[in-house]
């Protein structure tokens, strides 16, 4: 469950954003739309704890993120938030399975079976021991989804997850995200300017 209230952010160069209040229940999904420059990335990074909000409130389940100390926020992020990016980065020296396990390590859990189950559900278990760089972009996107889910997060954030994909892959990825978020009981927030998704997610918020 995610709730924000009077969230504002000001960059050091003076650029300031004020965001509408957001609410998204567990197992629910929310699409945040908007063209470039309206603060989509800023909002996503605030929700993901990658930027520290100074005023307002971000509550995930019963925890208030605004005002957390840096170390505390890192830990909270690892435990409770999974993020899928448009272009996903991995630890290049590790295999697919190891990339999931390192996410678990930083989230403070160790559950190899869970990693394998996820890979199996996403149909890439056969690549588990391959180096991450040998995978195709589509496969990498699946690994990124698996990685976002591996710590049973309360919130899954997706930053333009489909904008680089063709229609077929777009459907598949959004389907996977919805399905996995539902199974994990997490709230799913997708930030995008990809209009194809408008038809798929009814709960929408447009930033202006």
């Amino acid at each position, binding site marked *: 469950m995610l709730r924000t209230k009077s969230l504002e952010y000001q960059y050091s160069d003076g650029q300031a954003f004020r965001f509408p209040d957001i609410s998204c229940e567990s197992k629910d999904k929310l699409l945040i739309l908007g063209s470039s420059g309206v603060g989509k990335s800023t909002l996503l*990074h605030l929700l993901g704890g990658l930027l520290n909000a100074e005023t307002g409130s971000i509550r995930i389940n019963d925890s208030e993120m605004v005002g957390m100390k*840096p170390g505390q926020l890192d830990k909270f992020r690892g*435990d409770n938030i999974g993020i899928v990016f448009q272009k996903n*980065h991995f630890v290049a*020296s*590790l295999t697919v399975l190891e990339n999931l396990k390192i*996410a678990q390590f930083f989230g403070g859990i160790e559950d190899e079976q869970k990693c394998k189950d996820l890979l199996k559900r996403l149909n890439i278990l056969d690549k588990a021991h391959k180096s991450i760089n040998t995978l195709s972009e589509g496969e990498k996107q699946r690994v990124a989804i698996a990685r976002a889910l591996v710590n049973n997060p309360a919130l899954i954030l997706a930053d333009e997850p489909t904008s680089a994909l063709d229609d077929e892959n777009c459907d598949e990825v959004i389907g996977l995200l919805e399905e996995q978020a539902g199974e994990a009981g997490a709230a799913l927030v997708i930030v995008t300017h990809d209009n194809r998704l408008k038809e798929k997610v009814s709960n929408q918020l447009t930033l202006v």
Partner: protein
Amino acid sequence: MKILKLAYKNIIHSPLNLLLSIILFGLGIGLINFLFLFNAQLKTKFDSNLADIDLVIGAKGSPLQMILSSMYHIDNPTGNISIEECKAFLNPKHPLIKAAVPLSLGDSYRSYRIIGSTDSLMSFYGAELQQGKIHAKDFEVTIGRAVADDTGLKLGDSFVSSHGFNDDEDLAHDHAAFKVVGILKGTGNVIDQLLITNPSTVWNVHDHEGHDHQDHEGHDHGDHEGHDHGDHEGHDHGDHEGHDHGDHEGHDYGDHEGHDHVDHEGHDHGDHEGHDHGDHEGHDHGDHEGHDHGDREGHDHGDHEGHDHGEQEDKNNSNQAVNDPSIPFARTNADLLKYPEKEITSILVKFKNRTNFQALSMPRSINDNTDMQAASPAIEINRLYSMIGVGREMVKWLAFLIAFISAVSIFIVLYKSMRERKYELALIRVMGGSRSSLFQLITFEGMLLTAIGFLVGFVLSHLGIEILAGSLKSSYKYSFSGFQFMKSELILFGVSLLIGLVAALIPAVKASKTDIHNTLTEKG
């Protein structure tokens, strides 16, 4: 999946960087450790051979040379002294001396020295018999463990010696063969490298060449001088001068200036009382000619010429095995004292109480008042260390330079790879990694590089010692082992880790300051 494991995966992910770092660092550490090992093993060997010997007494010359030849057997002797001269020190009733072992350095066999001494030599070095018996007749020898192992000599084997320290067939004495009657247990000290016989055997080998002289009155003098000078010849120019200077600084022996002169003159006068001087001059000339040759062969010549005074034809006739029955077989110092006209090379002395004032002043009084010199092994060996220290220092600094360059290269490698992996580092933060996780990751990478480099250097240095053991053995007469390990290697390992940490510090701090938001939103 721990940070250390991630660091390990990261460094093996770029094998070329890894290779560069560990080759450079391994080389530096390897060189440093090689020097450590070499020094320590050499020092241990040198120290174990000190065998609590307080003083060495021998013919005048370089004190260091005398120590090296009499205790370490890696140089030629300074000359001989007559038993008459040194009888006071061989006297078992000497109030200050606990034990005195006379040495008569003789020929060698396959570059292992044959040494004539009393039975007390073996107890001096703590050697015990392993096989056979102690030599009891002329030309019988008891051999050290290393000699037996290296030359393959067994009980009952016979061999022919060669002159001096050379392993040169041309210089082989063609007299009676030596016979091995005993083999000693290994002790780890220099006695392992010796073939031990009686002083009389050494006398026999050398006197038989000029045994005609036995008939001549005054032969011993001739012999004596010939020997003495002969031995000096090979060394005077190089060793003596160098050493004498050093000696002055260290010891203040006062009369060492022109020491060689004193030696010659002293000798002549001392020994030749009542002899005609014409004869002497003839001697000295002969000797000095030999001098100019400046090598062992030169010595031989000098020797013969000095002796023979134109009796060359006799010499040629005398090269046969002759066991002179008039030469005694001496087991103890008391036996030796019965033959004051005979010569030995040096005496190893242990004092009853080395802090006794009279004992402390003994070397000086010997140097000042006799034709012999006395030197303390500990002092001379320390002097030797400081002399070879210069070359060692240079290699050491070279090694430090290599280690420093490798530390810089590790810094560059880490800094570069940190920049290349900025998305990865940001990702680790996204996954919940803290700033300190990134700091740890990069420092672990640096320390892993130096740790692996250390291991490579560690293996290289031990391998180097093991491989070089053969040639080291021939130049130092000691066996080195690549399988001896030292505490200082642990310290070196710690230092290696520290270097890795320092080299990684700046990249690690930079990594820990990775700004997730800016890195991830950076377009292109």
